């Protein structure tokens, strides 16, 4: 057996890889921001007084966490099409990833809410803070600070999971890899390069979240706890 590796032939396609990597980051960024909002809403909804809202949030979280992302993407893709909504693959990818990461964020945020001592909320009530003030200053912000490491690793996982969007032909990094390998017949080199790119992207994201954590949580920075 004669194995010949030719990385330069594949590296020539660097503009394609760069475009794919940028699109992957875009996907991850949009889904992270909207998924964080959706997940926080769902976590707040789990603690609502109305049983109906609690139920809906629980069903959403459990349904998403117990089915594969690939199936969810196909359901959104064909589901929206069947009700006459023709959206681009990129939009569908963002919607599906948002719904997906929202459920995981909701679970993480719920753990954060539960970690807030009851006494602090009572103290805030005693100081006549409004319901909104209590939610924002006493519950939400400290909870985010507590679960920040778990949240960020979930968002890095989301970036990696966005590779699945190649299956509905969103032109992100994995789709680019499939295209390049079918064009150059150098599948091994292509996927090695793409794997390295994903590792770089996840390192970049982790560094970014770490820096963001330093800015967002000065108290934590002084205490020297993990970000």
């Amino acid at each position, binding site marked *: *057996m*004669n*194995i010949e*590796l030719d990385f330069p032939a594949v590296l020539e396609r660097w503009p394609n890889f760069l475009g794919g990597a940028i699109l992957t980051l875009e996907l991850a960024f949009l889904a992270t921001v909207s998924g964080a909002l959706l997940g926080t809403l769902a976590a707040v909804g789990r603690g609502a007084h109305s049983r109906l809202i609690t139920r809906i949030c629980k069903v959403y979280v*459990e*349904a998403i*966490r*117990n*089915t*594969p*992302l*690939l*199936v*969810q993407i*196909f*359901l959104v893709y*064909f*589901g929206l099409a*069947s009700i006459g909504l023709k959206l681009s693959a990129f939009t569908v990818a963002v919607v599906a990833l948002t719904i997906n990461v929202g459920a995981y964020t909701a679970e993480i945020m719920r*753990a954060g809410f539960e*970690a807030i001592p009851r006494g602090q909320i009572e103290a805030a009530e005693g100081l006549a803070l409004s319901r909104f003030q209590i939610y924002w200053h006493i519950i939400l912000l400290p909870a985010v600070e*507590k*679960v920040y*490491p*778990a949240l960020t*690793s979930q968002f890095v996982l989301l970036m*990696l*999971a966005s*590779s*699945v969007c*190649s*299956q509905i032909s969103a032109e992100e990094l*994995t789709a680019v*890899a*499939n295209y390049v*390998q079918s064009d150059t*017949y*150098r*599948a*091994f080199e*292509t*996927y*090695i390069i*793409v*794997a390295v790119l*994903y*590792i770089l992207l*996840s*390192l970049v994201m982790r560094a970014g979240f770490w820096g963001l954590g330093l800015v967002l949580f000065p108290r934590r920075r002084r205490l020297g706890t*993990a970000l």
Partner: protein
Amino acid sequence: MGGHLNANHLLFLGHGALWTVGLSLIALIGGGIVGFVIALARISPLKSVRLLSAAYVQLVQGTPLLVILFLGYFGLAAIGLKMSPLAAASASLTLYVAAYLGEIWRGSIQSVPKPQWEAAEGLALSRTQRMIKVILPQAMRIATPPTVGFMVQIIKNTSLASVVGFVELMRSGQIVNNSLFEPFIVYAIIAAVYFAMCYPLSLFSQKLERRMGRGSANNLSLA
């Protein structure tokens, strides 16, 4: 074209579901064996072994499973190592699961209280004896809830094997859909079957976690 969903279609989906279970078991057993070695290597007294295993975990956890699968199926074939879809999917899932289970189990081993390690040493047990008789039995209790929870991830991740043409539940759904062209109904059924497999495991994992009351590897990242 078309026609309606009939018993044959459902039978075909059932067959696919069986392969999903089979592939999940292969990934769990293969990944469990390799993952156990990784967990031990991560706490080895030899620095080089620790570094190597840490690098393995970082590499795999920084790469999407889909890319690992493509590398195993198309990549290796391109350099002359042709594997069947089943072999490629099993190998990729094993490598992937090993990195995650290895980390979960390392966390469990390390969260066995320090005095237990010291007491075992004080009783002049050898390193191997200490591991087998004192540490691992306790670590296993700690590791059970997150491991059961991770089994849900394994089942869901086997759906990616469909992209290399392995006919498990997802792929059989795509095939049925190609003949019926009722994507919404077919994928809703597929989703329901995955849910029926995963949800009981999720509930079981939560129940175990509550029974333990504290400190599963899941909560380590929240500290």
